């Protein structure tokens, strides 16, 4: 059961993520943002419910669709947006853009533009935690498409053999770019792949905060007891195209509308909070408004931030002490 404080934290994060993504969309259409930008709108419940159970000492590795994970793991909206705009004040000095954003100080080992690239990195994070006897976990976020990469299978096996405190979270949004998962993926429910590695696997409704929250809590408990990794599959749907310029020829408008109107994770969680007496309409409205204001300030900050100085372009290739 989610308590009030956690519930409100999650509700706020979901709003921050949605506001951030929809702002990024607008800025992209206004040509104020460029590059490959993949939005998390519609999938907010997963990052928010999971990161609600993590501290800065817990680690995550993320994906090309990584803004949500980054924000849920504690990123400031302004610095994150500044990075998307390539500004000097961004988390990676304008070098990363959307696809490589990271904040190591918050336990975020980074977004990853290579599909499947982050899964072994989270595994290595878990290895370090275990070797250092820390009471923490690592989380690998990745998509259904990434579960067809060798890195997924190799990592699950390795983590299982070494009993690493790693939780593999697959965000099954039913597409890998323009290819529907039935065309590319051997099984409809990816949780079954855990059986091949002798670890628990669970499929949950990824748009249901309570379901994601509880399933992750179980996986985390197992990891902390030293029993090893778990695979958690969250079924979801992305509202926007794969990237901001996607013509979306591979799916119908109706299907997208259905997900928006019937299964919006934010609306559903709002109802949950109200039904369970955890909050009131006024309180939730206030959170929503505060998130929107925070986003406005973030845009202001990012737009007014300076561009990076090309004189420093060769810095940081190596650590120089």
């Amino acid at each position: 059961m989610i308590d009030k404080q956690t519930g409100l934290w999650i509700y706020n994060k979901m709003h921050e993520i949605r506001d951030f993504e929809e702002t990024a969309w607008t800025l992209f259409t206004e040509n104020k943002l460029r590059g490959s930008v993949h939005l998390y709108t519609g999938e907010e419940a997963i990052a928010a419910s999971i990161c609600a159970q993590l501290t800065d000492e817990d680690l995550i590795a993320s994906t090309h669709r990584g803004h949500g994970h980054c924000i849920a793991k504690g990123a400031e909206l302004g610095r994150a947006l500044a990075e998307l705009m390539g500004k000097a004040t961004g988390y990676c000095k304008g070098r990363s853009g959307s696809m490589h954003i990271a904040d190591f100080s918050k336990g975020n080992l980074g977004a990853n533009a290579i599909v499947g690239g982050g899964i072994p990195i989270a595994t290595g994070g878990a290895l370090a935690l275990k070797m250092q006897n820390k009471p923490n976990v690592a989380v690998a976020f990745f998509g259904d498409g990434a579960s067809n990469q060798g890195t997924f299978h190799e990592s699950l096996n390795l983590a299982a053999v070494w009993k690493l405190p790693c939780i593999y979270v697959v965000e099954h949004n039913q597409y890998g770019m323009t290819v529907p998962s039935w065309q590319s993926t051997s099984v409809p429910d990816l949780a079954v792949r855990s059986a091949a590695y002798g670890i628990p696997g669970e499929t949950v409704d990824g748009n249901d905060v309570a379901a994601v929250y509880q399933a992750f809590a179980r996986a985390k408990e197992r990891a902390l007891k030293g029993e090893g990794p778990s695979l958690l599959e969250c079924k979801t749907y992305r509202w926007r195209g794969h990237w901001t310029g996607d013509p979306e020829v591979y799916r119908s408008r109706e299907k997208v509308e259905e997900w928006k109107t019937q299964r919006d994770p934010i609306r559903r969680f709002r109802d949950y909070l109200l039904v369970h007496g955890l909050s009131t309409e006024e309180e939730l409205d206030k959170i929503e408004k505060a998130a929107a204001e925070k986003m406005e300030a973030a845009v202001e900050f990012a737009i007014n931030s300076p561009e990076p100085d090309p004189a420093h372009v060769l810095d940081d290739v190596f650590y120089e002490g």
Partner: protein
Amino acid sequence: MMTYAQAIRHVIQQEMRRDPRVFVMGEDVEKHGSVFGTTRDLYKEFGPDRIRNTPISESAFVGAALGAACAGMRPIAELMYWDFAFVCADQIFNQMAKTRYVFGGNAKIPMVLRSQQGTGRGNAATHSQSLESIFMHIPGLKVACPSAPADAAGLLRTAIRDDNPVCFFEHKMLYTTQADVPEDPDFCVPFGKASIRREGADVTIVANLYYVSQALEAAEALAREGISAEVIDPRTLVPFDYDTIAESVKKTGRLVVVHEAHQNNGWGAQVVSQICQMAFPYLDAAPVHLGAKACPLPFNPALEAAVIPSVSEIVAACKAACYVS
């Protein structure tokens, strides 16, 4: 008139009609028609068997292309970005490149591995690299890199008909460039034959892919200052036509090589070394080699521009070689 992307699509279509063993596989090649449209609508004519969407499993499908080639097919495998070659590096460098040789010449490997590379679209460190030098370093792979629509068509047809593995390098900023492409369904550009894109007497500029256009721009600027530059596009890097470049250098006495690939250990160094051996007595100045700086490609456009060679740097290098300040 055809764009570079249309020329590629056109040749794939013609070759698939001509030879039922030719087929395409890659990510999003079917209905989406590939990210830059190089297989657009081809599934309508050939069906999803021959325009085959793959899972996001580069090792599996690039390796499968090699296996299918060994077993009598003529696959064209498409990586979405050349950067993803590192995901399936074993299948490319240990398998594809070596299969024929290590099996004592038993196998024929009639496959093409196509992709696009380069900066220009703000795709940052792992979607913007220029990697052809690495493919030249490992023996057993042919390397083609068209800079114009007709070359794209002619080189791709040669690649598809070749019984060796060909790595076909396209550049993301070239897809929309337009030019005439010969209609002849057998039009081939031979491998190992450079193209002199502009004749000149004072300095030889060698460039590939997008940098051919940059070199031509530099040549225009140099002409305004009374320096006549010859611009040569090698078109294939394996095999490499050193003779055409050596002949040109014997005439001009000066060599500037420029590529978007990193300067350190980039293929331009190999060209400089070869030309020094072939035309040393004719050189009037030390050869110059320009390429991207030794750092990953940053996202911010001004930073990205600072990393790759600029037209003015090419101009300056040519002037320095001609002892003009």
